[in-house]
C-alpha cells in the first residue's frame, strides 16, 4: 500500500496503480480522452497523448508540475491535486485545441450525443472556438460496405491503431504524416475496400468520436419497407436481443427478444424471423461436415466459418490454409438462401420480390452480404444488414416506445430455435452447439448432458477435449483476431492438433461485435450479455439443433439430409485467396 494525498485528502491506495486509477477508486473524476484500458483483451491504450487528464503533482519543496494521470504511477508520499486552476486550465486548453481542429457538424454527426469529445466540451463549459485556425484536411473514406473513416474527426487517441495492431493484429491502421497533418490512415491512403481490413468494426467500438462509424443502410431499408411491391422479411442474430435493451436504458444483459420482435413488426417488416433458426441449420451442416472429415480422413482441424471478419482475415493472412474452414455459409446467409427458396414457396412470394434484412451485432456482415459468391441464381442471399445500433436508431426515428412494447413471438417456419443456436452469440457457443449435435450423432442418441462448460469462458485461447460417442474430440477456441493468429500459426507450424476450432473475430464473440451498442471500456457489459445468452439456452426446452422441429421439417420437406446436393448448393460456399496488404 502507498500513502498519497489526493486533493488534500490523505489516502491509502494499492501500489503500482496510476494516478487515474487511484482517483477513480476514491471518487475523484479526472476527464480522459485517449486512455483506454481493457487488459483482459490486451486493449491497453496508455499512450498519454491527448494530455486531457493532466493533474498537478506537488514536489516536497512546494514546486509542482503537471503529469498525465493515466500514465503516471503513484508513489508513496505522492501529493496530487486534480482540480487546481493550473490543471483545469491545461485540460480546458487541450479540449479547446481539439475543437479548433474538429469539424463543427455535431448535429449531423452519427456520434451526436454519444461522443467523448462532445462530453468533454460540455463538462468543461467550453463556449467558443477561441483557437480557430487552420484545420487538418483529409478525405472521407466511404469505399467499404461496412465502415466510414472520417479522419478530420480523428483526435489521434490511437485507440483504433492499438485495437487493429495489438489486439486484432490486422495492421490496417498506422499513424501517417506528422505534425498537424498526422492522422491514422491506411497504407498509401488506400480506400478501406482495398486493404486487408476484416471489417470487424472493433475500431468503431473504441473510437471516441465520429472518426470511425458504420455505413448506414437505414435509408435503403426504409425504402424497401415502403415499397408495396416488396415482401420485406427480417431476421435477428442471437447477440442482438441481449444488447438492444441498453440503447433504451434497460439494465445490462436484459433479454428483449419479445419486444424486439414486436418492434420490428411495428417498423413495418412483413415477417419477423430468427437467425437462431439458421444457426441450428448451420450446426446440422457443420456437425455433418465435421463427422465426415473425422471419419473419412478429411482435412483437420475444421474451423467454423460463421464470422465474416474471421473469414476475411484467413483469406488475407493465411491464404495457404483455406482448405481448413468449414464450407458452411454463415447462419444469416443460410437463412437468406432458404428464405428465398423454401420459405418463398411456402409464402407464395416471388423470390425476386423478397427482401431479406438481417439485424446483426456486426458491421462485417454488411460486407459479407455483398460478397458475390453468397448468392443463388444471381439473387443475393441477404439484401441488407443493419446493426443493433441502427435498429435502435430506426425505432427512435419511428417514435416507437420500445420499453412499453408487448412481447411477441417470431413468425413460424423459420422462427423456432434450440438453446444451441442461442449461444452462437458468444465465444465458444458455436462449437458447443456443434459438439452437442456431433456427440449425439456419433453416440447414436441425443446426449443427456448438453452443458459443455469446459468450452465456455472469456480466456482468449481455450482448448478442451470432449467425448463424442467413441471419439475424443479435441476442440480449440479463439476470439479476437490476435488470438486467432496465434492459434493458426501453431496449426500451420504443426505445433498443435485439433479436430475442430471455433474462431470469432471480436473479443467475446458476437456479443462484443462492432455493431453493438457502445460499451466504453466496460468489459463486464460483454460478459453480462454472454451470461444472458447462456440463461436463455438453459431455459429452452430444446437444447440441440437437430431436435428443432422446424429444422427437421426443412430437411424432410426440402433439403433431404445434411450435406445433400441441395444443401451444398444453397448452404455452402468457398473462399478466395487475397493479398496481404
Amino acid at each position, binding site marked *: 500500500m502507498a500513502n498519497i494525498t489526493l486533493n488534500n485528502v490523505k489516502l491509502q491506495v494499492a501500489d503500482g496503480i496510476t494516478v487515474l486509477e487511484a482517483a477513480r477508486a476514491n471518487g475523484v473524476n479526472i476527464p480522459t480522452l485517449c486512455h483506454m484500458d481493457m487488459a483482459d483483451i490486451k486493449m491497453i491504450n*496508455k*499512450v*498519454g*497523448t*491527448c*494530455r*486531457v487528464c*493532466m493533474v498537478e503533482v506537488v514536489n516536497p519543496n512546494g514546486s509542482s*508540475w*503537471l503529469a*498525465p494521470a493515466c*500514465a503516471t*504511477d503513484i508513489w508513496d508520499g505522492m501529493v496530487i491535486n486534480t482540480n487546481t486552476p*493550473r490543471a483545469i*486550465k*491545461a485540460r480546458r*486548453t*487541450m479540449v479547446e*485545441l*481539439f475543437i*479548433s*481542429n474538429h469539424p463543427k457538424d455535431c448535429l449531423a454527426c452519427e456520434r451526436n450525443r454519444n461522443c467523448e469529445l462532445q462530453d468533454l466540451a460540455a463538462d468543461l463549459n467550453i463556449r467558443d472556438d*477561441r*483557437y480557430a*485556425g*487552420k484545420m487538418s484536411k483529409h478525405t472521407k473514406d466511404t469505399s467499404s460496405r461496412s465502415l466510414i473513416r472520417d479522419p478530420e474527426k480523428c483526435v*489521434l487517441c490511437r485507440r483504433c491503431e492499438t485495437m487493429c495492431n495489438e489486439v486484432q493484429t490486422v495492421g490496417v491502421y498506422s*499513424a501517417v*504524416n*506528422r*505534425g*498537424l*497533418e*498526422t492522422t491514422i490512415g491506411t497504407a498509401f491512403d488506400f480506400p478501406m475496400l482495398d486493404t486487408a481490413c476484416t471489417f470487424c468494426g472493433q475500431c468503431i467500438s473504441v473510437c471516441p468520436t465520429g472518426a470511425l462509424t458504420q455505413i448506414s443502410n437505414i435509408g435503403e431499408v426504409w425504402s424497401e419497407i415502403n415499397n408495396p411491391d416488396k415482401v420485406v422479411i427480417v431476421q435477428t442474430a442471437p447477440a442482438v436481443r441481449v444488447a438492444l435493451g441498453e440503447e433504451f436504458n434497460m439494465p445490462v444483459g436484459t433479454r428483449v427478444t419479445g419486444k424486439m420482435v414486436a418492434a420490428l413488426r411495428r417498423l413495418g417488416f412483413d415477417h419477423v424471423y430468427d437467425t437462431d433458426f439458421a444457426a441450428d441449420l448451420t450446426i446440422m451442416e457443420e456437425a455433418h461436415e465435421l463427422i465426415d472429415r473425422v471419419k473419412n480422413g478429411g482435412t483437420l482441424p475444421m474451423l467454423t466459418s460463421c464470422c465474416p471478419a474471421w473469414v476475411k482475415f484467413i483469406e488475407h493472412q493465411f491464404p495457404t490454409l483455406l482448405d481448413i474452414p468449414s464450407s458452411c455459409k454463415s447462419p444469416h446467409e443460410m437463412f437468406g438462401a432458404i428464405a428465398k427458396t423454401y420459405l418463398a414457396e411456402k409464402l407464395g412470394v416471388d423470390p425476386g420480390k423478397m427482401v431479406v434484412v438481417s439485424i446483426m451485432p456486426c458491421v462485417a456482415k454488411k460486407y459479407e452480404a455483398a460478397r458475390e459468391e453468397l448468392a443463388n441464381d444471381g439473387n443475393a442471399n441477404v439484401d441488407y444488414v443493419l446493426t443493433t445500433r441502427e435498429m435502435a436508431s430506426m425505432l427512435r426515428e419511428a417514435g416507437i416506445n420500445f420499453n412499453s412494447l408487448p412481447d411477441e413471438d417470431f413468425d413460424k417456419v423459420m422462427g423456432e430455435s434450440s438453446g444451441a443456436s442461442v449461444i452462437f452469440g458468444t465465444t465458444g457457443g458455436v462449437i458447443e452447439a456443434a459438439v452437442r449435435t456431433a456427440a449425439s450423432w456419433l453416440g447414436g442418441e441425443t446426449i443427456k448432458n448438453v452443458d459443455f462448460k469446459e468450452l465456455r469462458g472469456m480466456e482468449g485461447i481455450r482448448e478442451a477435449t470432449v467425448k463424442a460417442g467413441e471419439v475424443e474430440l479435441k476442440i480449440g477456441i479463439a476470439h479476437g483476431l490476435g488470438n486467432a493468429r496465434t492459434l493458426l500459426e501453431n496449426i500451420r507450424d504443426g505445433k498443435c492438433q485439433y479436430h475442430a476450432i471455433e474462431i470469432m473475430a471480436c473479443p467475446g464473440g458476437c456479443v462484443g461485435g462492432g455493431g453493438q451498442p457502445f460499451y466504453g471500456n466496460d468489459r463486464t457489459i460483454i460478459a453480462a450479455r454472454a451470461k444472458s445468452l447462456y440463461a436463455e439456452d438453459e431455459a429452452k426446452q430444446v437444447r440441440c439443433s437437430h431436435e428443432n422441429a422446424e429444422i427437421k421439417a426443412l430437411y424432410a420437406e426440402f433439403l433431404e439430409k445434411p450435406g445433400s446436393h441441395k444443401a451444398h448448393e444453397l448452404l455452402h460456399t468457398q473462399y478466395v485467396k487475397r493479398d496481404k496488404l
Partner: protein
Amino acid sequence: MAKVKSISDLTAYKNAALAGDSKHIVDSSITRLYVGMATCGVAAGAADVMAALQEEIDKNGVKNTIVIPTGCIGMCYAEPMVEIRHPDGKTVFASGINADDARKVVTDYLMQKQAGEFIKPNVGYGKQVRVALRNCGNINPENICDYVAVGGYEALAKCLTSMSREGVIEEMKKSGLRGRGGAGFPTGVKWEFGFKNNSPSGKKYILCNADEGDPGAFMDRAILEGDPHSVLEAMAIAGYAVGADEGVIYTRAEYPLAVERLNIAIGQAVEKGLLGEGIMGTDFNFTISISMGAGAFVCGEETALINSLQGQRGEPRLRPPFPAQKGLWYEPTVNNNVETYAMVPAIIAKGADWFRTIGTERTPGTKVFALAGKINNVGLIEVPIGTTLKEIVYEVGGGLPGGKALKSIQTGGPSGGCIPVELQDTPVDFETLNAIGSMMGSGGMVVLDEDDCMVNIAKFYLDFTVEESCGKCTPCRIGNTRLYEILDKITMGHGTEQDLVELRQLGEVIKDTSLCGLGNSAPNPVLSTLNYFMDEYKAHVIDKKCPAGACTDLLTYKVVPAKCFGCTLCARVCPVNCIHTVDEIVGNNKKLHVIDQNECIKCGACVPKCPTKAIVVE
C-alpha cells in the same frame, strides 16, 4: 601491424606511429600544412586546394614539407583554409583560397617567403579552451595512427586494466561532467543508472546521439568529421562501465562525410583490436554500428531516437520507464551526445580533478558553440563554461560585421530563447541561461543584429517546430500550430493586443503539458521575445510597423515628393504598375510620382532604380 593485445602493444603502436605516419604531431623540424577537410571546407573547395598543394610541392621538390588532411579547424568563415606550422614554431593561416592560390602558397610563400594577400597571422584561440575539440585540426581523422599518436585509446586501456567499472563511474561523477546535448544531466549519474539496471537477458546498449538537428548547430558534425575515434573510445569506456557490449551511433542522413569517417574509424579500430572481442587482451567485448536518421528533428529526443532505431516512427515514448530502465529493444540503455563523449577520454586520461579546474563549480569543463548569424568569425568555438556571452561575441567571434549593433543572441535553437543585448554579460551555464528564458541547448548560438525582427525570428523557430512536431500529443501538434498562426497574423499586420495575451497563455500551457522536450521547449522563442522585446511586438500590433524592417507586409514604400523629378524610371520597373503620376512638378514639366499603397506588393524593385533616392521604406 598486428592487433593491440595489451597496454604495451598500444605504447609500441603509438611510438611506431609517431616515428612514421604521425610524425607531424611531434616533428617540428618540418613544415606542416593542415588542410581543413570537414564538410564546410570540402564544400568550399578544400579537396582541390589540398591536391594543388601536394602537386606543387612534388613538382618543385619542396623539402621537409608535408600536407595533412584534418578536420574542422573551427574558422568556417575562412574556408577553405590551410594552417601552416613552420619549424620555428610560427603558425600562419592561408584562408579563403582556391587551387590557384594554393599553388602560390607553395611557390610564392613557402619557396620565396613572399606572403601574399591570403596569408594571415595566427590569431590563436584566445579565450578558447579546447577539450572536446582537442584533436580537431591537429590529426588526420581518417588515420587511426594519428589518434593513437596523440594518446588515443590510452584512457580505454587505463579503464580496462587498472580501473573497476564502479571506479570509472565514480571518476565520471567526480568530474562533474554534464550532458552537452542540452539537458545537462550528470553523465556519471546516468552511467550509474545504466550500471544498476539489469534486464533478464543481461543485454545493455550504449547509444551516441549524433542527430544534431538544431538549425545553425554543427558541433557534433565537426567532432565526428575531425576526431571520430574520441567518440568511439568514449562509447567503449561507457560500455565497460555500464556493462554493455554493443553501441549504436545514430546520426543524420544529412551528414554523409561524418558517416564515412566514422565507418573508416570503426573499421580501423576493429582491425587494431581496439573494438570487437577481447579488447586489448581483456575479456571486454564491444562493437559499434552506425544508424542513420531520415530527417526528423524530434529524433534528437532520446526516446524518439530509440523508436527510430527500432525502425519505427520517431515518436517519443512516455517516461518512466526511462531509457536506463527500458531503452533500445526495452533493455537498459545509456545515451549521451557526441560532445559529451568527446570529453570522456580526456577526463579519464587526465583525471576528474583536472577537468574540474575548467569551467564553473556547478558545471566543470567547456562547451562547444557553433557561432553563426551576424558575426564576423562564423565558426566552431569551445569556451570554458562561465564565459560571458559578450566575451564570446566580441573576443572570440570578432564582433558583428558592417558595424551593426548587437540586438540579441539566440541560444538553444528552436528550444531556446532570444537573449537581449542588455543581458550580454550573462555567463553561459545551464542554469543561468534557463533563468533568463533560454537554454544552453546543444550549442547553436546565432547572433542577431538591428536588422532582425524578433517577431519574425520567433515565427521562424515556430515554423520549424510546427514542421518537425511528430504529431503525437495535442499541445505540440495543434497548440504550436496555433502559436505560429498568431505570430503569422502579427507579422502580416493583423495582430491585436489580445493576441499578445493569448500567445503568452497558450505558450505557457504548451510548456506545461507537452509530452516531450520538443513540445515543452517549443514556446521558448516566443516567450523569451515576449519578455524582452515587447516593444517590438507592440509596434507590430498597435502601430502596424516592423521596426527592423523585416516584415514585408508591414513595410510602406513612399516617394518623397521633394526628391522626385519625374524621370519615370520607377514606374517603368514596377511589376504591378502601381506607381502613378499626379501633379506637375513645379519648375519642371514632368510629373510627380506616387505609389498606390493598395496595389503595391512591396517587391522593392523601384528603390534601386531611383536616381535621386526618392523612394523610402518605412
